[in-house]
Protein backbone atom coordinates (compact mmCIF):
# COMPACT_ATOMS: atom_id res chain seq x y z
CA UNK A 1 0.00 0.00 0.00
CA UNK A 2 2.88 2.38 0.66
CA UNK A 3 6.63 2.42 0.16
CA UNK A 4 8.52 2.27 3.45
CA UNK A 5 12.24 2.66 4.01
CA UNK A 6 13.61 0.72 6.99
CA UNK A 7 17.04 1.75 8.28
CA UNK A 8 18.78 -0.50 10.81
CA UNK A 9 22.30 -1.90 11.12
CA UNK A 10 21.00 -5.13 12.67
CA UNK A 11 20.33 -7.47 9.76
CA UNK A 12 18.01 -9.69 11.81
CA UNK A 13 15.79 -6.76 12.74
CA UNK A 14 15.91 -5.52 9.16
CA UNK A 15 14.70 -8.91 7.93
CA UNK A 16 11.94 -9.12 10.54
CA UNK A 17 10.64 -5.63 9.74
CA UNK A 18 10.84 -6.30 6.00
CA UNK A 19 8.78 -9.46 6.45
CA UNK A 20 6.27 -7.76 8.76
CA UNK A 21 5.74 -4.76 6.50
CA UNK A 22 5.49 -6.84 3.33
CA UNK A 23 2.84 -8.93 5.04
CA UNK A 24 0.95 -5.67 5.58
CA UNK A 25 1.14 -5.09 1.79
CA UNK A 26 3.78 -2.38 1.89
CA UNK A 27 6.72 -2.06 -0.47
CA UNK A 28 9.90 -2.17 1.60
CA UNK A 29 13.28 -0.56 0.90
CA UNK A 30 16.13 -1.28 3.34
CA UNK A 31 19.34 0.47 4.32
CA UNK A 32 22.06 -0.59 6.78
CA UNK A 33 23.04 2.78 8.20
CA UNK A 34 21.97 6.39 8.36
CA UNK A 35 24.16 7.53 5.46
CA UNK A 36 22.82 4.88 3.09
CA UNK A 37 19.33 5.63 4.41
CA UNK A 38 19.72 9.29 3.50
CA UNK A 39 20.81 8.38 -0.03
CA UNK A 40 17.80 6.05 -0.42
CA UNK A 41 15.44 8.67 0.99
CA UNK A 42 16.62 11.28 -1.51
CA UNK A 43 16.55 8.84 -4.43
CA UNK A 44 13.29 6.99 -3.75
CA UNK A 45 11.29 9.42 -1.63
CA UNK A 46 9.49 6.74 0.42
CA UNK A 47 6.08 7.42 1.98
CA UNK A 48 7.51 6.78 5.45
CA UNK A 49 10.83 5.92 7.11
CA UNK A 50 11.38 3.59 10.07
CA UNK A 51 14.81 4.36 11.51
CA UNK A 52 16.97 2.94 14.29
CA UNK A 53 19.00 5.34 16.49
CA UNK A 54 22.17 3.44 17.23
CA UNK A 55 23.82 2.91 13.85
CA UNK A 56 27.35 3.37 12.54
CA UNK A 57 28.28 6.37 10.35
CA UNK A 58 25.15 8.34 11.17
CA UNK A 59 22.77 8.01 14.14
CA UNK A 60 19.01 8.07 13.71
CA UNK A 61 18.89 11.51 15.31
CA UNK A 62 21.36 12.92 12.76
CA UNK A 63 19.40 11.22 9.97
CA UNK A 64 16.22 13.02 11.12
CA UNK A 65 18.01 16.38 11.22
CA UNK A 66 19.41 15.88 7.70
CA UNK A 67 16.02 14.89 6.27
CA UNK A 68 14.24 17.84 7.87
CA UNK A 69 16.89 20.20 6.47
CA UNK A 70 16.30 19.06 2.87
CA UNK A 71 13.28 20.77 1.30
CA UNK A 72 12.67 17.87 -1.12
CA UNK A 73 12.19 15.22 1.58
CA UNK A 74 11.49 17.18 4.74
CA UNK A 75 7.81 16.19 4.93
CA UNK A 76 8.38 12.42 4.94
CA UNK A 77 7.15 10.92 8.26
CA UNK A 78 9.95 9.28 10.28
CA UNK A 79 9.39 6.75 13.06
CA UNK A 80 12.39 6.32 15.30
CA UNK A 81 12.46 2.65 16.33
CA UNK A 82 15.10 2.21 18.95
CA UNK A 83 16.43 -0.03 21.71
CA UNK A 84 16.87 3.17 23.75
CA UNK A 85 13.49 3.24 25.47
CA UNK A 86 13.71 6.04 28.03
CA UNK A 87 11.32 9.04 28.03
CA UNK A 88 14.33 11.29 27.33
CA UNK A 89 15.04 9.26 24.18
CA UNK A 90 11.56 9.94 22.87
CA UNK A 91 12.01 13.65 23.51
CA UNK A 92 15.44 13.66 21.86
CA UNK A 93 13.98 11.91 18.79
CA UNK A 94 11.11 14.38 18.51
CA UNK A 95 13.51 17.32 18.98
CA UNK A 96 15.62 15.94 16.13
CA UNK A 97 12.57 15.99 13.86
CA UNK A 98 11.12 12.49 14.17
CA UNK A 99 7.37 12.18 13.68
CA UNK A 100 7.08 9.52 16.35
CA UNK A 101 9.20 7.29 18.54
CA UNK A 102 8.66 3.62 19.35
CA UNK A 103 10.89 1.42 21.50
CA UNK A 104 11.98 -1.92 20.08
CA UNK A 105 9.97 -3.67 22.77
CA UNK A 106 6.97 -2.68 20.62
CA UNK A 107 5.39 -5.68 18.88
CA UNK A 108 5.66 -5.80 15.07
CA UNK A 109 1.87 -5.58 14.83
CA UNK A 110 1.80 -2.40 16.90
CA UNK A 111 4.47 -0.93 14.63
CA UNK A 112 2.36 -1.75 11.56
CA UNK A 113 -0.63 -0.12 13.23
CA UNK A 114 1.31 3.06 13.98
CA UNK A 115 2.66 3.19 10.44
CA UNK A 116 -0.91 2.96 9.10
CA UNK A 117 -1.89 5.90 11.28
CA UNK A 118 1.03 8.04 10.20
CA UNK A 119 0.91 7.38 6.47
CA UNK A 120 -0.54 10.20 4.39
CA UNK A 121 -4.19 9.47 3.54
CA UNK A 122 -3.39 9.10 -0.15
CA UNK A 123 -0.93 6.28 0.50
CA UNK A 124 -2.87 4.77 3.35
CA UNK A 125 -5.72 3.89 1.02
CA UNK A 126 -3.73 3.28 -2.15
CA UNK A 127 -4.16 -0.09 -3.83
CA UNK A 128 -6.65 -1.30 -1.28
CA UNK A 129 -8.79 -4.10 -2.66
CA UNK A 130 -11.62 -5.58 -0.60
CA UNK A 131 -13.69 -8.57 -1.61
CA UNK A 132 -17.09 -9.27 -0.10
CA UNK A 133 -18.24 -12.82 -0.30
CA UNK A 134 -20.67 -15.40 0.99
CA UNK A 135 -21.06 -18.98 -0.17
CA UNK A 136 -24.83 -18.64 -0.44
CA UNK A 137 -27.03 -15.68 -1.36
CA UNK A 138 -29.24 -13.73 1.01
CA UNK A 139 -26.62 -12.45 3.43
CA UNK A 140 -26.64 -8.96 1.94
CA UNK A 141 -23.24 -9.06 0.22
CA UNK A 142 -24.22 -6.68 -2.58
CA UNK A 143 -25.97 -4.13 -0.37
CA UNK A 144 -22.93 -4.12 1.92
CA UNK A 145 -20.56 -3.80 -1.07
CA UNK A 146 -22.52 -0.85 -2.46
CA UNK A 147 -22.73 1.00 0.85
CA UNK A 148 -19.10 0.29 1.71
CA UNK A 149 -17.99 1.67 -1.69
CA UNK A 150 -19.95 4.87 -1.12
CA UNK A 151 -18.54 5.32 2.39
CA UNK A 152 -14.96 4.72 1.21
CA UNK A 153 -15.41 7.22 -1.63
CA UNK A 154 -16.88 9.95 0.56
CA UNK A 155 -14.66 9.56 3.61
CA UNK A 156 -11.36 8.95 1.83
CA UNK A 157 -12.05 11.42 -0.99
CA UNK A 158 -10.36 9.08 -3.38
CA UNK A 159 -11.19 7.02 -6.44
CA UNK A 160 -13.08 3.86 -5.52
CA UNK A 161 -14.37 1.28 -7.96
CA UNK A 162 -17.09 -1.26 -7.34
CA UNK A 163 -16.97 -4.35 -9.50
CA UNK A 164 -20.08 -6.51 -9.67
CA UNK A 165 -18.56 -9.92 -10.28
CA UNK A 166 -21.92 -11.63 -10.51
CA UNK A 167 -21.17 -11.18 -14.23
CA UNK A 168 -24.81 -11.47 -15.17
CA UNK A 169 -27.90 -10.42 -13.28
CA UNK A 170 -25.99 -8.68 -10.47
CA UNK A 171 -27.77 -6.06 -8.38
CA UNK A 172 -25.15 -3.40 -7.68
CA UNK A 173 -26.40 -1.12 -10.47
CA UNK A 174 -30.00 -1.43 -9.24
CA UNK A 175 -28.95 -0.54 -5.69
CA UNK A 176 -27.13 2.54 -7.01
CA UNK A 177 -30.10 3.51 -9.20
CA UNK A 178 -28.05 3.24 -12.39
CA UNK A 179 -28.77 1.70 -15.77
CA UNK A 180 -25.66 -0.10 -17.00
CA UNK A 181 -24.20 1.17 -20.25
CA UNK A 182 -21.51 -1.50 -20.18
CA UNK A 183 -20.57 -4.41 -17.97
CA UNK A 184 -17.77 -6.72 -16.92
CA UNK A 185 -18.36 -9.07 -19.85
CA UNK A 186 -18.25 -6.24 -22.40
CA UNK A 187 -15.17 -4.70 -20.78
CA UNK A 188 -13.30 -8.00 -21.07
CA UNK A 189 -14.45 -8.65 -24.63
CA UNK A 190 -13.67 -5.14 -25.87
CA UNK A 191 -10.30 -4.92 -24.16
CA UNK A 192 -8.95 -8.04 -25.92
CA UNK A 193 -6.40 -8.64 -23.21
CA UNK A 194 -5.34 -5.00 -22.95
CA UNK A 195 -6.52 -3.94 -19.50
CA UNK A 196 -4.98 -0.49 -19.50
CA UNK A 197 -6.68 2.54 -18.02
CA UNK A 198 -7.76 3.83 -21.44
CA UNK A 199 -9.18 0.44 -22.42
CA UNK A 200 -11.20 -0.05 -19.24
CA UNK A 201 -12.33 3.49 -18.47
CA UNK A 202 -15.24 3.64 -20.97
CA UNK A 203 -16.88 0.67 -19.27
CA UNK A 204 -17.18 2.32 -15.87
CA UNK A 205 -20.13 4.45 -14.83
CA UNK A 206 -19.77 7.16 -12.20
CA UNK A 207 -22.38 7.31 -9.45
CA UNK A 208 -23.28 10.72 -7.97
CA UNK A 209 -21.30 9.78 -4.84
CA UNK A 210 -18.20 9.31 -6.97
CA UNK A 211 -18.18 5.50 -6.92
CA UNK A 212 -17.04 4.08 -10.25
CA UNK A 213 -19.19 1.07 -11.05
CA UNK A 214 -18.39 -1.76 -13.42
CA UNK A 215 -21.75 -3.48 -13.52
CA UNK A 216 -22.70 -7.02 -14.31
CA UNK A 217 -24.48 -7.87 -17.55
CA UNK A 218 -28.21 -7.13 -17.28
CA UNK A 219 -28.96 -9.93 -19.72
CA UNK A 220 -27.83 -13.52 -20.14
CA UNK A 221 -24.33 -13.74 -21.58
CA UNK A 222 -22.91 -16.97 -22.89
CA UNK A 223 -19.28 -17.90 -22.92
CA UNK A 224 -18.09 -15.92 -19.94
CA UNK A 225 -17.21 -17.68 -16.75
CA UNK A 226 -15.08 -16.74 -13.76
CA UNK A 227 -12.65 -19.47 -14.76
CA UNK A 228 -11.52 -17.16 -17.52
CA UNK A 229 -8.01 -15.71 -16.84
CA UNK A 230 -9.09 -12.48 -18.47
CA UNK A 231 -11.26 -11.65 -15.46
CA UNK A 232 -8.27 -11.97 -13.12
CA UNK A 233 -6.09 -9.89 -15.47
CA UNK A 234 -8.75 -7.21 -15.66
CA UNK A 235 -9.04 -6.99 -11.87
CA UNK A 236 -5.24 -6.73 -11.61
CA UNK A 237 -5.43 -3.87 -14.13
CA UNK A 238 -7.71 -1.92 -11.79
CA UNK A 239 -4.77 -1.31 -9.43
CA UNK A 240 -3.41 1.35 -11.74
CA UNK A 241 -6.79 3.04 -12.09
CA UNK A 242 -8.23 3.24 -8.60
CA UNK A 243 -6.95 3.79 -5.09
CA UNK A 244 -9.44 1.27 -3.82
CA UNK A 245 -11.61 -1.42 -5.31
CA UNK A 246 -14.54 -3.27 -3.79
CA UNK A 247 -15.31 -6.63 -5.36
CA UNK A 248 -18.87 -7.87 -5.00
CA UNK A 249 -17.88 -11.50 -5.39
CA UNK A 250 -20.22 -14.18 -6.74
CA UNK A 251 -21.20 -17.17 -4.62
CA UNK A 252 -18.56 -19.41 -6.14
CA UNK A 253 -15.74 -21.13 -4.30
CA UNK A 254 -13.72 -23.22 -6.70
CA UNK A 255 -10.06 -23.72 -7.45
CA UNK A 256 -10.08 -21.58 -10.60
CA UNK A 257 -11.89 -18.73 -8.86
CA UNK A 258 -9.58 -18.61 -5.85
CA UNK A 259 -6.87 -16.45 -7.54
CA UNK A 260 -9.44 -13.66 -7.72
CA UNK A 261 -10.20 -13.96 -4.01
CA UNK A 262 -6.49 -14.15 -3.20
CA UNK A 263 -5.51 -10.84 -4.76
CA UNK A 264 -7.67 -8.85 -2.35
CA UNK A 265 -6.14 -7.22 0.71
CA UNK A 266 -9.11 -8.33 2.78
CA UNK A 267 -11.78 -10.89 2.00
CA UNK A 268 -14.89 -10.09 4.00
CA UNK A 269 -17.06 -13.13 4.60
CA UNK A 270 -20.59 -11.84 5.11
CA UNK A 271 -23.05 -13.91 7.10
CA UNK A 272 -26.45 -13.42 8.62
CA UNK A 273 -27.53 -14.55 12.07
CA UNK A 274 -29.18 -17.82 11.09
CA UNK A 275 -28.14 -21.46 11.07
CA UNK A 276 -27.91 -21.96 7.27
CA UNK A 277 -25.70 -18.89 6.91
CA UNK A 278 -23.49 -20.07 9.76
CA UNK A 279 -23.15 -23.46 8.10
CA UNK A 280 -22.28 -21.88 4.72
CA UNK A 281 -19.69 -19.66 6.37
CA UNK A 282 -18.06 -22.60 8.14
CA UNK A 283 -17.84 -24.43 4.80
CA UNK A 284 -16.51 -21.28 3.10
CA UNK A 285 -13.78 -20.94 5.75
CA UNK A 286 -12.77 -24.57 5.23
CA UNK A 287 -12.73 -24.06 1.47
CA UNK A 288 -10.73 -20.84 1.61
CA UNK A 289 -8.13 -22.52 3.80
CA UNK A 290 -7.86 -25.44 1.38
CA UNK A 291 -7.55 -23.05 -1.54
CA UNK A 292 -4.59 -21.38 0.18
CA UNK A 293 -6.23 -18.10 1.17
CA UNK A 294 -4.03 -16.46 3.85
CA UNK A 295 -5.91 -16.69 7.12
CA UNK A 296 -5.03 -13.15 8.18
CA UNK A 297 -6.72 -11.77 5.06
CA UNK A 298 -10.13 -13.17 5.98
CA UNK A 299 -12.54 -11.18 8.14
CA UNK A 300 -16.07 -12.01 9.25
CA UNK A 301 -18.87 -9.45 9.14
CA UNK A 302 -22.33 -10.22 10.47
CA UNK A 303 -25.19 -8.58 8.61
CA UNK A 304 -28.43 -8.70 10.60
CA UNK A 305 -30.93 -8.91 7.76
CA UNK A 306 -34.01 -9.51 9.93
CA UNK A 307 -35.29 -7.80 13.08
CA UNK A 308 -35.63 -11.13 14.85
CA UNK A 309 -32.99 -12.26 17.28
CA UNK A 310 -31.65 -15.56 16.15
CA UNK A 311 -28.05 -16.63 16.74
CA UNK A 312 -26.15 -14.47 19.22
CA UNK A 313 -22.79 -13.09 18.06
CA UNK A 314 -20.95 -14.99 20.81
CA UNK A 315 -22.42 -18.25 19.57
CA UNK A 316 -21.34 -17.46 16.00
CA UNK A 317 -17.82 -16.63 17.14
CA UNK A 318 -17.56 -19.80 19.17
CA UNK A 319 -18.93 -21.93 16.35
CA UNK A 320 -16.57 -20.46 13.76
CA UNK A 321 -13.67 -20.09 16.23
CA UNK A 322 -12.99 -16.61 14.85
CA UNK A 323 -13.77 -13.08 15.98
CA UNK A 324 -16.41 -11.03 14.20
CA UNK A 325 -14.85 -7.87 12.74
CA UNK A 326 -18.13 -5.93 12.59
CA UNK A 327 -21.85 -6.38 13.02
CA UNK A 328 -24.27 -4.43 10.83
CA UNK A 329 -27.52 -4.09 12.81
CA UNK A 330 -30.91 -4.63 11.20
CA UNK A 331 -32.28 -1.54 9.46
CA UNK A 332 -35.88 -1.44 8.23
CA UNK A 333 -34.97 1.29 5.73
CA UNK A 334 -32.46 -0.98 4.00
CA UNK A 335 -35.15 -2.53 1.76
CA UNK A 336 -36.48 0.94 0.95
CA UNK A 337 -32.95 2.07 0.09
CA UNK A 338 -32.44 -0.92 -2.19
CA UNK A 339 -35.75 -0.37 -3.98
CA UNK A 340 -35.21 3.36 -4.42
CA UNK A 341 -31.69 2.93 -5.79
CA UNK A 342 -30.26 5.18 -3.10
CA UNK A 343 -27.77 3.46 -0.77
CA UNK A 344 -28.64 3.51 2.93
CA UNK A 345 -25.51 5.47 3.85
CA UNK A 346 -26.89 8.31 1.67
CA UNK A 347 -30.64 7.94 2.27
CA UNK A 348 -30.43 7.39 6.03
CA UNK A 349 -26.86 8.21 7.07
CA UNK A 350 -27.80 8.52 10.75
CA UNK A 351 -29.11 4.99 11.01
CA UNK A 352 -27.24 2.52 13.19
CA UNK A 353 -26.54 0.32 10.16
CA UNK A 354 -25.00 3.23 8.21
CA UNK A 355 -22.84 4.07 11.24
CA UNK A 356 -21.72 0.44 11.48
CA UNK A 357 -20.76 0.39 7.80
CA UNK A 358 -18.78 3.61 8.32
CA UNK A 359 -17.00 2.00 11.25
CA UNK A 360 -16.27 -1.10 9.17
CA UNK A 361 -14.65 1.10 6.49
CA UNK A 362 -12.44 2.69 9.15
CA UNK A 363 -11.40 -0.67 10.55
CA UNK A 364 -10.52 -1.94 7.08
CA UNK A 365 -8.26 1.04 6.47
CA UNK A 366 -6.25 0.72 9.69
Amino acid at each position, binding site marked *: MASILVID*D*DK*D*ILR*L*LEFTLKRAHHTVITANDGKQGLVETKAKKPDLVVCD*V*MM*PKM*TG*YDFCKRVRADSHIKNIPIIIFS*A*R*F*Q*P*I*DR*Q*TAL*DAGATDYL*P*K*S*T*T*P*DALVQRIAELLPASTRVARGMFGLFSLRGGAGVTSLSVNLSVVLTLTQKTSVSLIDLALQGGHASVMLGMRPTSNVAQAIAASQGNFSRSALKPHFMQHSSGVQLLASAPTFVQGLSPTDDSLLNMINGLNSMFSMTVLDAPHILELHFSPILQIVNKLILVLSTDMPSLQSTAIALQGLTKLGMPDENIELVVNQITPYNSLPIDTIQKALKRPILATIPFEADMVKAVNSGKPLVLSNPRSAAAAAIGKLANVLLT
Partner: protein
Amino acid sequence: MAGVHRISAGRVTADFFTASYRFSATAIVYNRRLIDVLSDRTTNYLDMVDIYVSRINNPGDIVATYQKGTLIKEELNFIMLATEAEGTSKERHFANRENLPIFISIPSFEIHGKIQWGAKELHVKKLLVSDTQNFLPIVEATATNSLFPEVVFQGPMALVNKSKIQVVCASSLSMKSNLPDRSRGF
Protein backbone atom coordinates in the same frame (compact mmCIF):
# COMPACT_ATOMS: atom_id res chain seq x y z
CA MET B 1 3.71 -11.44 20.79
CA ALA B 2 7.20 -10.35 21.83
CA GLY B 3 8.80 -7.19 20.61
CA VAL B 4 11.92 -7.16 18.50
CA HIS B 5 14.22 -6.16 21.35
CA ARG B 6 16.28 -9.32 21.65
CA ILE B 7 16.24 -10.86 18.25
CA SER B 8 19.92 -11.74 17.92
CA ALA B 9 20.76 -14.81 19.96
CA GLY B 10 23.41 -14.33 22.63
CA ARG B 11 23.14 -10.54 22.70
CA VAL B 12 21.25 -8.20 24.99
CA THR B 13 20.80 -4.50 24.33
CA ALA B 14 20.34 -2.40 27.45
CA ASP B 15 21.36 0.81 29.21
CA PHE B 16 24.39 0.45 31.48
CA PHE B 17 24.91 3.21 34.04
CA THR B 18 27.89 4.42 36.00
CA ALA B 19 27.76 7.49 38.23
CA SER B 20 28.61 9.77 35.28
CA TYR B 21 27.67 7.96 32.08
CA ARG B 22 24.95 6.11 30.30
CA PHE B 23 26.14 3.43 27.89
CA SER B 24 23.50 2.14 25.49
CA ALA B 25 25.16 -1.02 24.31
CA THR B 26 24.77 -4.64 23.39
CA ALA B 27 26.26 -7.13 25.83
CA ILE B 28 27.57 -10.46 24.60
CA VAL B 29 25.96 -13.09 26.82
CA TYR B 30 26.32 -16.18 24.61
CA ASN B 31 23.66 -18.70 25.68
CA ARG B 32 23.14 -17.26 29.14
CA ARG B 33 20.98 -14.57 30.64
CA LEU B 34 22.53 -11.22 31.41
CA ILE B 35 22.13 -11.55 35.20
CA ASP B 36 23.96 -14.88 35.14
CA VAL B 37 26.81 -13.38 33.11
CA LEU B 38 27.03 -10.49 35.58
CA SER B 39 27.26 -12.98 38.46
CA ASP B 40 29.95 -15.05 36.79
CA ARG B 41 32.88 -14.69 39.18
CA THR B 42 35.39 -16.11 36.70
CA THR B 43 35.58 -12.76 34.94
CA ASN B 44 35.33 -9.11 36.01
CA TYR B 45 34.52 -7.93 32.53
CA LEU B 46 31.53 -7.72 30.26
CA ASP B 47 32.15 -7.70 26.51
CA MET B 48 30.11 -5.13 24.62
CA VAL B 49 29.47 -4.15 21.01
CA ASP B 50 27.81 -1.10 19.47
CA ILE B 51 28.41 1.21 22.39
CA TYR B 52 26.72 4.63 22.43
CA VAL B 53 27.96 6.96 25.15
CA SER B 54 25.87 9.70 26.78
CA ARG B 55 26.75 11.94 29.71
CA ILE B 56 24.42 11.55 32.65
CA ASN B 57 23.38 15.21 32.74
CA ASN B 58 22.27 15.07 29.09
CA PRO B 59 21.40 11.42 28.57
CA GLY B 60 19.54 11.85 25.28
CA ASP B 61 22.61 13.13 23.43
CA ILE B 62 25.06 10.60 22.07
CA VAL B 63 28.56 12.03 22.54
CA ALA B 64 30.54 9.06 21.23
CA THR B 65 30.02 5.71 19.57
CA TYR B 66 32.30 2.69 19.51
CA GLN B 67 32.06 -0.68 17.87
CA LYS B 68 33.63 -2.75 20.67
CA GLY B 69 34.37 -2.30 24.35
CA THR B 70 34.57 -3.88 27.77
CA LEU B 71 32.78 -2.84 30.92
CA ILE B 72 34.23 -3.55 34.31
CA LYS B 73 31.29 -5.17 36.07
CA GLU B 74 32.06 -3.90 39.55
CA GLU B 75 32.16 -0.31 38.29
CA LEU B 76 28.59 -0.43 37.04
CA ASN B 77 25.91 1.22 39.16
CA PHE B 78 22.92 -0.41 37.56
CA ILE B 79 21.52 -1.68 34.27
CA MET B 80 18.09 -0.81 32.92
CA LEU B 81 16.49 -3.60 30.87
CA ALA B 82 13.64 -3.42 28.35
CA THR B 83 12.23 -6.78 29.45
CA GLU B 84 12.25 -8.76 32.68
CA ALA B 85 13.56 -12.00 31.18
CA GLU B 86 17.24 -11.04 31.09
CA GLY B 87 17.16 -10.06 34.75
CA THR B 88 15.70 -13.29 36.03
CA SER B 89 18.21 -16.01 36.58
CA LYS B 90 17.52 -19.42 35.11
CA GLU B 91 18.54 -20.81 38.49
CA ARG B 92 16.29 -18.64 40.65
CA HIS B 93 12.57 -19.19 40.83
CA PHE B 94 10.02 -18.37 43.50
CA ALA B 95 6.85 -20.41 43.65
CA ASN B 96 4.83 -17.67 45.34
CA ARG B 97 6.50 -14.41 44.53
CA GLU B 98 5.40 -11.20 46.19
CA ASN B 99 6.32 -7.77 44.87
CA LEU B 100 7.43 -5.56 47.73
CA PRO B 101 8.17 -1.81 47.41
CA ILE B 102 11.86 -1.00 47.74
CA PHE B 103 14.14 2.04 47.84
CA ILE B 104 17.83 1.87 47.09
CA SER B 105 20.46 4.57 47.08
CA ILE B 106 23.65 4.19 45.07
CA PRO B 107 26.22 6.81 44.04
CA SER B 108 24.39 9.58 42.11
CA PHE B 109 21.09 7.66 41.90
CA GLU B 110 18.08 6.74 43.95
CA ILE B 111 16.07 3.80 42.74
CA HIS B 112 12.43 3.06 43.51
CA GLY B 113 10.80 -0.16 42.47
CA LYS B 114 9.71 -3.54 43.69
CA ILE B 115 11.60 -6.57 44.80
CA GLN B 116 10.33 -10.06 44.12
CA TRP B 117 10.47 -12.03 47.31
CA GLY B 118 9.38 -15.61 47.84
CA ALA B 119 10.03 -16.19 51.53
CA LYS B 120 7.37 -15.61 54.15
CA GLU B 121 9.27 -12.89 55.94
CA LEU B 122 11.45 -10.24 54.36
CA HIS B 123 14.79 -9.62 56.01
CA VAL B 124 16.16 -6.54 54.28
CA LYS B 125 19.78 -7.51 54.85
CA LYS B 126 19.11 -10.90 53.30
CA LEU B 127 18.36 -9.17 50.01
CA LEU B 128 22.05 -8.37 49.80
CA VAL B 129 23.52 -11.59 51.05
CA SER B 130 21.01 -14.37 50.43
CA ASP B 131 22.27 -15.52 47.05
CA THR B 132 25.37 -15.55 44.90
CA GLN B 133 24.22 -12.94 42.44
CA ASN B 134 26.14 -9.67 42.36
CA PHE B 135 23.21 -7.69 40.99
CA LEU B 136 19.82 -7.21 42.62
CA PRO B 137 16.84 -7.37 40.24
CA ILE B 138 14.29 -4.59 40.82
CA VAL B 139 11.04 -4.69 38.84
CA GLU B 140 9.07 -1.62 37.71
CA ALA B 141 12.17 0.42 38.40
CA THR B 142 12.58 4.18 38.34
CA ALA B 143 16.08 5.60 38.76
CA THR B 144 16.38 9.30 39.54
CA ASN B 145 19.69 11.12 39.40
CA SER B 146 20.25 12.78 42.76
CA LEU B 147 22.23 15.67 41.26
CA PHE B 148 19.91 16.25 38.29
CA PRO B 149 16.47 15.06 39.51
CA GLU B 150 14.95 15.80 36.11
CA VAL B 151 17.07 12.95 34.73
CA VAL B 152 14.91 9.88 35.21
CA PHE B 153 15.22 6.38 33.76
CA GLN B 154 12.48 3.82 33.85
CA GLY B 155 12.15 0.21 32.85
CA PRO B 156 10.38 -3.06 33.63
CA MET B 157 13.56 -4.25 35.36
CA ALA B 158 16.77 -2.77 36.73
CA LEU B 159 19.77 -4.78 37.90
CA VAL B 160 21.48 -2.92 40.72
CA ASN B 161 25.09 -3.63 41.65
CA LYS B 162 24.97 -4.86 45.24
CA SER B 163 28.49 -3.61 45.96
CA LYS B 164 27.37 -0.04 45.11
CA ILE B 165 24.30 -0.02 47.33
CA GLN B 166 24.51 2.51 50.16
CA VAL B 167 21.06 2.08 51.66
CA VAL B 168 18.25 -0.34 50.95
CA CYS B 169 14.79 0.05 52.43
CA ALA B 170 11.80 -2.21 51.87
CA SER B 171 8.37 -2.63 53.32
CA SER B 172 6.19 -5.62 53.82
CA LEU B 173 3.18 -6.45 55.96
CA SER B 174 5.04 -9.38 57.41
CA MET B 175 8.45 -7.72 57.52
CA LYS B 176 10.65 -8.71 60.39
CA SER B 177 13.23 -6.29 61.76
CA ASN B 178 16.83 -7.42 61.72
CA LEU B 179 17.33 -5.80 65.10
CA PRO B 180 16.96 -7.92 68.25
CA ASP B 181 13.48 -7.76 69.79
CA ARG B 182 13.91 -5.59 72.91
CA SER B 183 10.26 -5.02 73.64
CA ARG B 184 10.54 -7.37 76.57
CA GLY B 185 13.62 -5.68 77.90
CA PHE B 186 17.17 -6.97 78.06
